[in-house]
């Protein structure tokens, strides 16, 4: 479990994060979202003990990363954006070194290394020098070191950047497999992947936590901002627009825009208003000279939510 309370960090006069509060339960996979400079990396670096906060505290399984850093770090596996690799060591030697500094007991060390090598599909690479590996395999070695020793908290900064589609699928399944026993925090710019992988979403903006959604809250929000997409036939664009505007008469806050492909996007202030517009349209279309070719709710991506929120 990760508990963050009033966490702030200043670099001199510059504010990186202020008054951050959130909690991740055991088994949750959370995505940390925000534009460049929003404070994602600073947050992650404080949680992993790399940086000391200016104020506030973060607890890893109840242990303060500030007051009791060694105990807290024992429960953390961390993959930074650039995997921290000693390129002149072989994969096995590197993981062996990591297992020692993570204080995996010597009798379990080899077994643990074999386990993470298998999980990250590095069986054929274990005697290879890291400097000779491709970017994708280096990333896997980075992930292997992060999950080595079975830490209860796994924190990953951009875990899928640089991976090919096959590796992305494998990584997604690996991260999902960590859920249950581990708490996972992922920061990434590839929002589609975050949406597919995570069940909690933290939106950072200018160093502050703006939104903290679980999946159902996020889907509700997606539903709220979703537009209606309508395509008619039997007229030209101008007459079709006039017809749609006549339906919107008396309804507040409805905007009708051409989507540029012969269709219209109807934005409404609420899901209820959208349903009202849809029902009215279906009632009136039969009495008009137009035919309904397409009527659907537009899919909203995490990118759209991201752009609206931050």
């Amino acid at each position, binding site marked *: 479990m990760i508990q963050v309370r009033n966490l702030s960090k200043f670099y001199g006069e510059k504010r990186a994060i202020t008054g951050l509060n959130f909690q991740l339960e055991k088994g949750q996979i959370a995505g940390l979202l925000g534009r460049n400079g929003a404070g994602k990396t600073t947050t992650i670096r404080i949680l992993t003990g790399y940086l000391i906060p200016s104020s506030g505290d973060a607890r890893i399984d109840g242990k303060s990363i500030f007051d009791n850093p060694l105990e807290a770090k024992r429960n953390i596996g961390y993959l930074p954006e650039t995997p921290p690799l000693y390129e002149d*060591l072989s994969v096995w030697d590197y993981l062996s070194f990591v297992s020692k500094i993570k204080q995996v007991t010597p009798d379990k060390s080899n077994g643990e290394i074999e386990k993470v090598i298998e999980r990250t599909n590095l069986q054929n690479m274990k005697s290879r020098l890291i400097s000779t590996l491709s970017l994708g395999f280096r990333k896997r070695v980075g992930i292997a070191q992060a999950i080595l020793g079975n830490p209860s908290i796994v924190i990953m900064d951009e875990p899928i950047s640089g991976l090919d589609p096959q590796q992305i699928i494998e990584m997604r399944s690996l991260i999902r497999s960590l859920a249950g026993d581990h708490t996972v925090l992922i920061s990434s710019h590839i929002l589609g992947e975050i949406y597919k992988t995570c069940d909690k979403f933290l939106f950072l903006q200018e160093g502050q936590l703006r939104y903290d959604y679980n999946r159902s809250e996020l889907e509700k929000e997606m539903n709220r901002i979703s537009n209606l997409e309508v395509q008619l036939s039997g007229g030209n664009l101008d007459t079709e627009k006039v017809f749609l505007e006549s339906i919107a008469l008396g309804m507040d806050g409805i905007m009708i825009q051409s989507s540029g492909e012969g269709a219209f996007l109807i934005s409404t202030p609420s899901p209820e208003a959208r349903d009202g517009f849809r029902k009215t349209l279906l009632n009136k279309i039969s009495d008009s000279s137009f035919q309904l070719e397409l009527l659907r709710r537009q899919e909203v991506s995490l990118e759209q939510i991201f752009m609206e929120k931050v």
Partner: protein
Amino acid sequence: MNWTNTISIYRKEIKLFFGTYMGALVLGGTAFLNAIFIMILNFNGRANYEDATIITFISFMSTILIAMVILSMGSIVEERNKGTLELLFTSPITDLEIITGKFMFGATICAVITVFINGLFPILLYAYWQAPFYIVVSGSIGVFLLGIFTFSVGLFGSSIAKNQMVSLLVSVLILLTLWVAGYFSHLFQATTRKVLFQLHIFSHYIGFSKGVLPLTGIVFFLSGTLLFLYLTIKVLESRRWRG
């Protein structure tokens, strides 16, 4: 302090050193330079073995300085630039354990140079160069102490620099400052002169190369080593605050 962590860092450093060009560069380069000094100083018609040995061990001072500065210049700055310092900082291991492990590695290589490179020359060449044993022993102790002192200065330089070249310059600047301060100490008033003279690396080392074990020299090199190791740890700690 957890010695298992320290030994893990130490073993990793040793493995990287002997697994890359660094081992050959530092050990081979030192042996090569030492061989040139010995050839020039001892096989040039010089009859007095004692003087030749003293001058030889003074020349070893330059080779151990070069070797230790090269060995230490990337020690921390490269970890930071390659991102591996993030691995160490986020693992359950303290800054003291990291620096102690790295220092033990430096001291080991320094001992290897002192015993197997500097020390072997007088033994292997005994038929041609009958170096007095007591000078070889005291000179070797001096080389070792100077070596670990230089390594700790280099570690400090590496902890504050942004790249290896700046690290090298910082270390050389510190060593030169200590040298020059002592060299020009006679230009100052009595008290200042005494203080500056005590900072003079060469004046502390020269005793060892003459066959004695000066207590001030031993204290100077050991306390200087500890001081720069302490400063290095403080620099690492401050980085956690500054980011």
